[in-house]
């Protein structure tokens, strides 16, 4: 399962991505990410189980983050693996979307409490 969306406490939405978010993976997650972006205001995207992601996957993340922010919500990224972290920092996405290593910190960052 490439993407799983679950509702956590405090109206936080946890999006768990897994596997390869390559060309096919990015196409597969685009629609559900758009749904999350269009309807959720506190989103943590867990990347800990993502083995691969390049610019097409980044597009999905950024589009979702922009949609959430447009409604004054918050979206953060959680625990990318080294290769994914390098893609994120090389692209500069980490300057636009906060990245956290710890689950608790990510939740606190998007919590409205």
């Amino acid at each position, binding site marked *: 399962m490439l993407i799983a969306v679950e509702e956590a406490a405090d109206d936080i939405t946890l999006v768990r991505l897994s596997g*390869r978010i*390559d*060309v*096919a993976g990015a*196409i597969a997650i685009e629609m559900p990410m758009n749904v999350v972006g269009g309807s959720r205001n506190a989103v943590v995207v867990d990347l800990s189980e993502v*083995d*691969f992601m*390049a*610019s*097409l996957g*980044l*597009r999905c993340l*950024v*589009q979702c*983050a*922009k949609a959430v*922010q*447009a409604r004054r919500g918050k979206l953060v990224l959680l625990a990318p693996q*080294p*290769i994914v972290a*390098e*893609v994120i920092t*090389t*692209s*500069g*996405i980490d*300057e*636009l*979307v906060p990245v956290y290593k710890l689950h608790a910190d990510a939740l606190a960052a998007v919590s409205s409490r």
Partner: protein
Amino acid sequence: MASELSAAADLYAWLDEALPRDAAPADVVARMHVALEEAVVNAVLHGFPAGVVGEITVRVSVADDTVRLTVEDNGSAFDPTAAATPRRPRSLSEAVPGGWGLALIRRFCPTAAYERQSETNRLTMCFGLK
């Protein structure tokens, strides 16, 4: 392959099958995948006018502990090794999704070389296996 995203989905498996078994560390293979995706996606998304499906050819060879990846397309002339990288947006609201391919190619394959011959763009990327 045709210059369409759907045609690019099988590239990674194709590359993995072309490599000698266990020839490259997993992190090197991952870097090849990133560079390959960026080069091909760049050609697909930006190399041809809207509605035009062009041709992209990807070749791989392995010799002397080096993997040589070549991405060719018959689209408009474009040198990803020399083009200026887009200015980074100052905020998420200002950001336009995309535009990261050049930086990623340069990061994951700093030795990438470009040439244009006979209306063809050719990007050659080499990766050491050890």
